[in-house]
């Protein structure tokens, strides 16, 4: 059967052939991995969050599978921005947008990182203001509307590519933070990063992750992500990218109805193989055909009455 629906979309000025992007931190530390994911049908790639200096991350265990999701505290391991250039440069010929995710402790760091990402050829910048378990770099900056606004606007004036802001659900009021990003001229909001959580080993009477607290992703957090997107969409006028527990085409559509212009997929690759991008793209098309939708624009934000 020929699928009739068109699933291209755009996030602000960034057009995407497919609405399914690779989420930051998953199979995106080197050019080879990102190439493989592009072949699997991702509409865009977000790199691992990169900082100024190389960072080893926490000792293992850093990631475990819980009953209904994945718990991780990698601790933002990354080779540092200077080593990362060659990875992005290798992807130069790819027609799939590469979005450079970066983390920092203050505006100065974010500016430097985003300028380098732009130089390397990234199509957009994703400001990770939401790592739930990295001291100094995560929620410390990502839960303060003033800091969000300052960091966003200072990056904005220093680069010419779109700037996206990734938010955490571990806050009292996520739409306030989204508004802060908007007022800092962010081009889009991404939500959600992982949810702060913990697993204790009963035999050894200790948290399993070396960092004790980790970030929860996968199926279990989808209803939290949907809620965040919905709340954000009620408060901002810039595009939103939805992420958190997307495993199927219907999950992606639910996020889009909540207000997402595109979606990201993280640990879904564990549950449905790397090919999950192709699978979900197809499922979206099939669902749209069945329900007589022709374009994603008919779906995006549809649940706001």
């Amino acid at each position, binding site marked *: 059967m020929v699928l009739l629906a068109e699933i291209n979309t755009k996030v602000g000025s960034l057009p995407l052939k497919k609405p399914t992007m690779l989420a930051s931190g998953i199979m995106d*530390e080197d050019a080879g991995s*990102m190439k493989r994911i592009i072949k699997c049908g991702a509409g865009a790639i977000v790199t691992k969050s990169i900082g100024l200096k190389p960072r*080893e991350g926490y000792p293992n265990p850093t990631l475990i*599978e819980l009953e209904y999701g994945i718990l991780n505290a990698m601790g933002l391991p990354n080779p540092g921005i200077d080593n990362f250039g060659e990875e992005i440069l290798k992807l130069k010929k790819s027609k799939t947008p590469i979005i450079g995710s970066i983390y920092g402790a203050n505006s100065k760091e974010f500016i430097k990182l985003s300028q380098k990402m732009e130089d390397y050829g990234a199509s957009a910048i994703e400001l990770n203001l939401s790592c739930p378990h990295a001291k100094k770099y995560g929620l410390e900056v990502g839960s303060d509307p003033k800091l969000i606004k300052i960091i966003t606007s200072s990056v904005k004036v220093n680069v010419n590519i779109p700037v996206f802001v990734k938010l955490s659900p571990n806050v009292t009021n996520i739409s306030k933070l989204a508004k802060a990003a908007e007022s800092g001229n962010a081009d889009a909001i991404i939500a959600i990063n992982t949810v702060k959580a913990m697993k204790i080993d009963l035999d050894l009477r200790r948290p*399993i992750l070396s960092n004790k607290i980790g970030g929860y992703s996968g199926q279990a957090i989808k209803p939290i992500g949907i809620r965040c997107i919905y709340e954000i969409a009620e408060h901002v006028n810039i595009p939103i990218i939805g992420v958190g527990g997307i495993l199927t085409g219907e999950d992606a559509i639910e996020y889009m109805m909540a207000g997402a212009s595109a979606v990201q997929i993280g640990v879904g690759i564990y549950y449905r193989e790397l090919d999950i991008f192709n699978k979900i793209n197809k499922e979206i098309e099939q669902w749209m055909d069945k329900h007589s939708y022709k374009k994603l624009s008919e779906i995006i934000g549809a649940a706001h009455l």
Partner: protein
Amino acid sequence: MNIPKITKILDIQNEAKNVKTITFKYPNKSKPGQFFMIWIPGVDEIPMSVSYLDKDIKEITFKKIGDATSALYKLKKGDRIGVRGPYGNGFQPKGKQVLFVGGGTGIATIAPAVEHTVKNKNKATVIIGAKTKDELFFEDRLKKCGAKILVSTDDGSKGFKGFVTDLAQDILKKENIDSIMTCGPEQMMKTLLTYSNNIYFQASLERYMKCALGICGQCCIGEGLRVCMDGPIFDGETLKNVTDFGVYRRDSAGRKVRF
């Protein structure tokens, strides 16, 4: 759920200089060439090949080289470790006559595959290579199972003096080998691959591992091949296209480290 299962150390054996085998209860189906993530609570969790497997009991054999292996080395019978896995694909030799080449602790990874091959009524020739005599292990164990064992040491303190790959090349000329299965230093394996010609070739790779579930991307080689999941064993055809094979690995931060 995929979390460490806590198990008690049932037995500990000294194998060679700084090399020990730890025996523990872990009822689970495993295949030769697969690996576990071994949690040493409060220290680290590291990948370790299964060096002996039985329905209920498993063993790992390791060399003390850093924090985690030193902590593991100090553990006593009755101490507890966490185990998750097995992960990875396992060896799959083809044909009737298999050449195994193990360099350093690589022999730990290879041993169960050797025994499995002999048990399946195929012929196994094993080359055990080490720097020096004191570092050799599993010679007796593998002899006992019926494999043909050859030893090489860099310093000639036992067996053939020189590189294990030279000895292997010799065998490949003399014997009618159907597959080559190897685990050891990557440059050794790479050399072996160039010697292999059209013989079916599988090598077990080691990369820094974090999740072992194919999610984090830490262990990737080539175009996104996950050593933890698509490997750790890759065949020659695949490895020929992996430009990093034998050239560099990545450290915990993802930086390239040349071999």
